[in-house]
């Protein structure tokens, strides 16, 4: 189980409070598909993902971004219990969706960079360290049922 200091808990919450899921979710998801285009393999039903413009305008991409960030909210509120919180989602991504767990790492990095655009220098090196520790704990929890 990952251990969290008071500073780490408050930093994660402070960053999360500044994030508008409806605004940032679509941005994050578009970034993943544009920067790591092989992730499109999981989204055959999303329609036109052939150009950057198409991805940025795609409603299903935007909707999915919001879904993913809402799930991240669970982690913010269950930092001491991430593996259990994400057990079902992890199973789903493994058995049914067949997603390569490396994709979770790619998503984590896109989340960090999108947040960096939003918070700018308010995302200090120390905050970035704490935020990435948090995200990698989520990645770990999402990978936990892959066996």
């Amino acid at each position, binding site marked *: 189980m990952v251990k969290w200091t008071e500073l780490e808990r408050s930093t994660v919450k402070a960053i999360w409070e500044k994030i508008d899921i409806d605004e940032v979710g679509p941005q994050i998801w578009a970034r993943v598909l544009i920067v790591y285009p092989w992730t499109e393999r999981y989204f055959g039903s999303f329609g036109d993902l052939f150009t950057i413009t198409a991805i*940025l305008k795609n409603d299903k991409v935007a909707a999915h971004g919001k879904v993913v960030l809402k799930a991240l909210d669970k982690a913010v509120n269950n930092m001491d219990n991430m593996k259990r919180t994400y057990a079902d989602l992890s199973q789903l991504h493994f058995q049914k969706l067949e997603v390569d767990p490396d994709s979770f790492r790619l998503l984590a990095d896109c989340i960090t960079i999108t947040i*960096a655009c939003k918070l*700018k220098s308010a995302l200090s090196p120390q905050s970035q360290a704490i935020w990435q520790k948090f995200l990698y704990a989520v990645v770990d929890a999402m990978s936990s049922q892959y066996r």
Partner: protein
Amino acid sequence: MTSLSAKDKNTVKAFWAKVAGKEEQIGCDAVSRMLTVYPQTKTYFSHWKDLSPGSAPVRKHGATVMAAVTDAVSKIDDLTGALLSLSELHAFTLRVDPANFKVLAHNLLVVLATVFPNDFTPEVHVAMDKFLAAVARALSEKYR
């Protein structure tokens, strides 16, 4: 991984032109973040008096790295040639595990996002990510 398209190269050059004048600040911040967020990277700098964010050796090293990246942008059509001696330095003298190039690249991208929140679009992001990966590949050439 694929090599850089003409569009990638133009995107990188156009974006990097905005960096002019901010190299020291960006380099310093990138190295500071690398050392803070990935403490394992500190193992290469035990000879520095001060590894804290923004310290003099961190600032100096940030400037060194940025000068090399700026040079690489200007020689984007032949990164292997441009980075030959730096590759030898990293392979034989410094012996930095090449996995760390990706780590520094990530932190540089984070800094660029904070400094250019509106210009660091997904399009620029992917071009820069590909470019830094190509730089890392060229730097790894002489390793084995």
